[in-house]
């Protein structure tokens, strides 16, 4: 028997195969291999014990055993598909009969161990003695879209030497791979933000003359109400653009005190008013923060707490886009330091807006509050509210009133320039003059070398070659011209025209002076000046420009006005400090100046002591309406002091008042000024070097002048001569000879074209300074 795809070491049938209509061939599948069996045992019969080694595709399988009518091929490693079959796989058997034998059975679903068989019939029509049984087995895996196929052929070579070939084709396994995914759910929930809306009664905070405010302070430290263990003052300070601070003193319970446990612990302080029955009539939060420093006093056995609302840390952890929204200022990495943290970034932003920024009493981020007082005050306090003799007005020092902020801002960039030079040389005469004279022509290579020797790039170079051999009529006389260059290429020329180009860079600096002026204040107080300077440079290396030889390929260059051969391009669009970046930086610098002026003019402070006003905040505008002082401005600072021992509660309120004399002005919008003219400072001229001709070897004229058509030149080899220096051919005996050369003088690029160009611009920027209410009456 032969297995197609397998070879066996001679396992012959031991007897002629009788054509038996009842011959059946079975095919069994087990878990590890397959058996080929004739069911009736008559034929084909194989020699018992004829074990052999089968190979498939070069791989050796386990030893096969042949016993009687059965060939067993144990499950070898090569029949991997069978080995892969497992319980639950479905096997579909299908047999095809080709040639002379038919197998009837099949197409049934079978399990391992099932047999499939059919009758073998002779090829009556052909009368041949060869028989072929071909069995196709389709194996469907549980997840197979297509069957695995074995085709088994059993070929009977006839009664004399029947051979049963079996062909087994193992198709690549096909499957629909599944990746099992394990999802671990760490938790499930529905997060919630519980909201407590505390509506307080401002009226309850007002103490009528002669009445005493009943109040209590509720201090929660790390979730524990410690209000009853506090002694002395509870003090809360809120100041513009700084962290809110709270101090209180705790008398801890007896025992070991570990103050470090409280560092960073959350703290809230509420001020509550009470009615005569001790019921809460109003509750207002005045502090939300954390413990900064607890300090234990072993003498008094008290612990002093310094708490902060942690503004700086909060801002360090706030994204910059959020800070942009909250503060609403400007920022440029050309003005400020990019490496700084977000707190510094916040400060940078604040320096460009006339606003203050801090957290709310509840510890929440909120937008910046403009310095300017509202038209209508949020609160008005008069003699009934202001504690006796507590009012104070402090005016700003004259020397601090900066009203002219001089901003010097320069912007530097590179200007790329290209200069062209056109030149031309012609033989000094016509072709007949050439024929009738001894004057030699320059070689084209000499002119090319001369052009290259200038150090300028050759943009174009054209030559007039000598004409081909001909009979030339010169003044009625025919002259024979024989061009000896035939076969050697045109070496000489009658004329040459060329264009050279030079690249070079020129630094440009725009000097801007912006006089940011608080005009009304300047009118009143005279100019108090502060200066600041910023320099911005657009980074561009002109080396690559000057070194490039590809001069003609310079798109985008603009011609220099007034000249025809000079071109330029400003490199002020670089990634680092392009003009857009510079203009943004200038706007930032302008706003810094405006803010500095407005800030300097709101250093007037009116301070009053009030009965406790817990609802006051830095966002409020307060009006002080008393006889000696009338003022209205934004709250700059608040200090609440609640003395538990004495039962007093006082609020110190400081109001910032912006003052500027003179007439209000319309503020100049923040925008970069018009850039100064630096283009017209460039020089440009038409440059056409004159190229002449001179010859040595002429003894007739000294200085020689062999020809009269051109200009005669003295024979002085040391003197530079732009053009063609040749010799007569043949030359006069005894006459001086030149070293024949061609020279092109392009002239150097003048220093004025390389030195930095500076353009100046001076602009006035007007700042409107709020002039808020402040009347002091003696």
């Amino acid at each position: 028997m032969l297995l197609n795809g397998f070879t066996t070491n001679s396992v012959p049938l031991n007897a002629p195969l009788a054509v038996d209509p009842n011959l059946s061939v079975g095919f069994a599948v087990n878990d590890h291999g397959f058996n080929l069996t004739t069911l009736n045992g008559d034929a084909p019969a194989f020699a018992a014990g004829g074990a052999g080694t089968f190979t498939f595709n070069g791989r050796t399988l386990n030893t096969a055993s042949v016993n009687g009518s059965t060939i067993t091929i144990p499950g070898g490693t090569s029949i991997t598909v069978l080995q892969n079959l497992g319980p639950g796989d479905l096997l579909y058997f299908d047999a095809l009969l080709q040639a002379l034998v038919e197998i009837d059975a099949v197409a049934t679903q079978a399990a391992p161990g099932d047999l499939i068989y059919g009758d073998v019939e002779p090829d009556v029509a052909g009368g041949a003695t060869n028989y072929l049984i071909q069995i196709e087995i389709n194996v469907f895996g549980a997840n197979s879209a297509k069957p695995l196929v074995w085709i088994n052929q059993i070929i009977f070579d006839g009664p004399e030497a029947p051979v049963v070939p079996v062909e087994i084709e193992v198709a690549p396994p096909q499957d629909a791979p599944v990746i099992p995914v394990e999802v671990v759910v760490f938790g499930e929930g529905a997060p919630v933000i519980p909201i407590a809306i505390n509506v307080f009664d401002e009226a309850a905070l007002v103490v009528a003359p002669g009445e005493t405010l009943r109040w209590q302070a509720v201090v929660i430290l790390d979730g524990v109400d410690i209000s009853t263990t506090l002694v002395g003052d509870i003090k809360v300070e809120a100041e513009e653009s700084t962290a809110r601070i709270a101090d209180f003193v705790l008398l801890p319970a007896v025992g070991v005190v570990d103050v470090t446990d409280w560092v960073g612990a959350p703290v809230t302080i509420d001020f509550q008013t009470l009615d005569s029955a001790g019921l809460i009539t109003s509750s207002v939060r005045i502090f939300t923060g954390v413990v900064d420093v607890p300090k234990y006093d072993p003498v008094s056995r008290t612990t002093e707490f310094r708490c902060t609302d942690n503004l700086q840390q909060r801002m360090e952890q706030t994204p910059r886009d959020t800070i942009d929204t909250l503060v609403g200022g400007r920022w440029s990495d050309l003005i400020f330091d990019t490496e700084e943290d977000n707190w510094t970034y916040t400060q940078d932003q604040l320096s460009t807006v006339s606003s203050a920024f801090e957290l709310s009493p509840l510890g929440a981020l909120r937008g910046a509050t403009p310095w300017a007082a509202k038209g209508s005050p949020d609160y008005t306090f008069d003699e009934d509210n202001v504690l006796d003799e507590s009012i104070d007005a402090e005016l700003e020092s004259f020397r601090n009133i900066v009203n002219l902020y001089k901003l010097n801002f320069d912007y530097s960039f590179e200007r790329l320039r290209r200069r062209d030079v056109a030149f031309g040389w012609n033989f000094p005469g016509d072709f007949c003059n050439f024929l009738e004279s001894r004057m030699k022509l320059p070689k084209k290579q000499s002119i090319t070398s001369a052009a290259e020797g200038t150090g300028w790039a050759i943009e174009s170079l054209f030559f007039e070659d000598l004409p081909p051999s001909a009979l030339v009529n010169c003044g009625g006389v025919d002259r024979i011209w024989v061009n000896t260059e035939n076969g050697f290429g045109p070496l000489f020329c009658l004329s040459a025209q060329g264009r050279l180009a030079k690249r070079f860079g020129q630094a440009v600096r725009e000097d801007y002076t912006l006089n940011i002026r608080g005009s009304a204040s300047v009118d009143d107080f005279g100019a108090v000046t502060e200066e600041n300077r910023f320099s911005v440079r657009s980074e561009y290396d002109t080396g690559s420009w000057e070194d490039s030889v590809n001069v003609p390929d310079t798109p985008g260059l603009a011609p220099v006005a007034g000249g025809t051969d000079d071109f330029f391009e400003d490199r002020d669009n670089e990634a680092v400090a392009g003009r857009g970046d510079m203009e943004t930086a200038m706007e930032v610098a302008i706003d810094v100046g405006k803010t500095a002026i407005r800030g300097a003019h709101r250093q007037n402070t009116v301070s009053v002591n009030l009965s406790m006003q817990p609802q006051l905040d830095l966002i409020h505008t307060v009006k002080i309406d008393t006889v000696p002082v009338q003022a209205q401005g934004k709250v700059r600072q608040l200090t609440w002091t609640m003395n538990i021992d004495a039962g007093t509660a006082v609020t110190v309120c400081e109001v910032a008042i912006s003052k500027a004399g003179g007439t209000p002005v319309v503020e100049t919008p923040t925008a970069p000024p018009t850039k100064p003219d630096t283009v017209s400072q460039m020089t440009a001229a038409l440059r056409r070097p004159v190229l002449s001709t001179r010859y040595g070897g002429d003894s007739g004229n000294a200085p020689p002048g062999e020809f009269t058509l051109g200009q005669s030149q003295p024979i002085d080899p040391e003197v530079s001569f732009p053009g063609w220096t040749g010799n007569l051919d043949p030359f006069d005996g005894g006459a001086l000879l030149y070293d024949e050369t061609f020279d092109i003088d392009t002239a150097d690029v003048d220093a004025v074209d390389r030195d930095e160009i500076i353009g100046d611009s001076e602009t006035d920027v007007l700042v409107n300074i709020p002039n808020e209410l402040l009347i002091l009456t003696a």
Partner: protein
Amino acid sequence: MAISFAFFNDAGLTNPLVGNLQIQQASDGSTGPVDVNLFFGSNAVGRKVQAASDPGIDSIILNIEDAAPGSGHEDTEIKLALTQIGLDSATPGAPGGQTLGTVLLSEVGNATSIWIRIEDATGVIGTSLELSIQMNNVIEVDV
């Protein structure tokens, strides 16, 4: 097991919201609207939350809940948005909820900024706890 995602007072996710989000308003309405910026996120590494109803498909939504509709404070006293500017055009009461996305990732830098604007409309003195902002049920899994 609780999820690691929570609401924080800061984008750095160092200061979790503990207890109630407290808002105080003067009874005469002079305080005006109060804006609060909270951040939803987690410091756990490599986690995400998705709507439990259909993870990755359904949206994670914040809704304003009123424990006593028709009395006291109403949900229309609250606006929700993802930016402070968005609060100006947000609809009071956030009908339909404020969508945060279908997948929210853990770790600082992925925190979701949420802006809340609250303005008392009652003028009734006292502290009310009837309003809250509720997220739909979410599950936390590995990224």
